[in-house]
């Protein structure tokens, strides 16, 4: 009886999904003419970003400029996820002494490789989030790449410890600066994250108004949060 109900529900869901997808023409140009008198939203972004906000990477312009408030929501989601994991799995100082992180010994090759790769990975991540308005990528991507580097160090070295005080401070400052810059824009420009500095020249590092500043803050925040989650998870004591 239960199985029949589940199959019926899935069939109904599949029917409506298929109906929706069949209406979308596959492989057709849905952006429309970007020079039209009344372009679609995508067409408007594609034709106006270069001149208006002087950003080479249109995706970044949409994420930070046109949809800045949504990005704040995304950052909040990640913050809440980290807080949830930390509040469930956090250990007090007294318990921490008997905890051993990942008791598998890592081989010499892995340790040497991690030591060589760690600076390169971190540099790539920082490059991705500083150049978010020029090349593909941005704060989230760069932050996750930096966290991957820290993950490599955390699993290959037992003595590699992260300083939780510094991490808390970095996270708070990055999150606060995002909100404060956004509110400053709201006061001076009447829009959340309104562009305050001079917008600059296309294709230069100092262009795009607020985008580099916001993305540096987001990159630090994402990197620190993901590293924190991994650090907490690796400190769980395995059941014997």
């Amino acid at each position: 009886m239960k199985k029949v109900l589940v199959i019926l529900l899935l069939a109904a869901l599949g029917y409506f999904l298929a109906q929706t997808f069949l209406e979308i023409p596959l492989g057709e140009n849905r952006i429309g003419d970007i020079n039209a008198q009344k372009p679609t939203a995508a067409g408007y972004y594609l034709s106006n970003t270069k001149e208006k906000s002087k950003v080479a990477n249109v995706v970044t312009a949409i994420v930070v400029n046109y949809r800045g408030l949504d990005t704040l929501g995304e950052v909040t989601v990640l913050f809440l996820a980290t807080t949830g994991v930390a509040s469930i799995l956090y250990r007090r100082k007294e318990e921490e002494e008997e905890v051993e992180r990942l008791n598998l010994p890592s081989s010499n090759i892995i340790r040497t490789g991690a030591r060589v790769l760690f600076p390169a990975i971190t540099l790539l991540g920082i490059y991705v989030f500083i150049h978010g308005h020029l090349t593909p990528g941005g704060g989230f991507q760069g932050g996750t790449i930096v966290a991957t580097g820290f993950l490599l160090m955390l699993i290959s070295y037992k003595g590699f410890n992260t300083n939780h005080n510094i991490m808390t401070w970095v996270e708070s400052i990055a999150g606060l600066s995002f909100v404060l810059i956004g509110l400053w824009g709201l006061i001076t420009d009447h829009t959340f994250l309104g562009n305050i500095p001079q917008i600059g020249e296309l294709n230069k590092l100092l262009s795009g108004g607020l985008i580099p500043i916001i993305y540096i803050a987001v990159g630090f925040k994402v990197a620190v949060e993901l590293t924190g989650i991994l650090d907490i998870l690796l400190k769980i004591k395995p059941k014997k």
Partner: protein
Amino acid sequence: MIYIAILIIMGVLLLATAIFAVTHRDLLFAVIATGIISLILSLFFYLLQAPDVALTEAAIGIALTTIIFVITIRNTTRDEDEIIDKKNEKL
């Protein structure tokens, strides 16, 4: 033409890896298979001209998610049958 052929081969590989991940009884193998799915997916995103999505998929899907699942397996159990047996014992 070659482009479409590469896409079709990658799609078949993706499906095969996904079926392997769902059906395999050893959970560690299944988790590694999901990592490989992410690898193929990020190549897909790159070929379909979405490099920023490919970057995210590579960093999160291949590295972070796989490691989190490996930590979970280490703290619980590696064999799927064992979990089912324990469930049946309780019932």
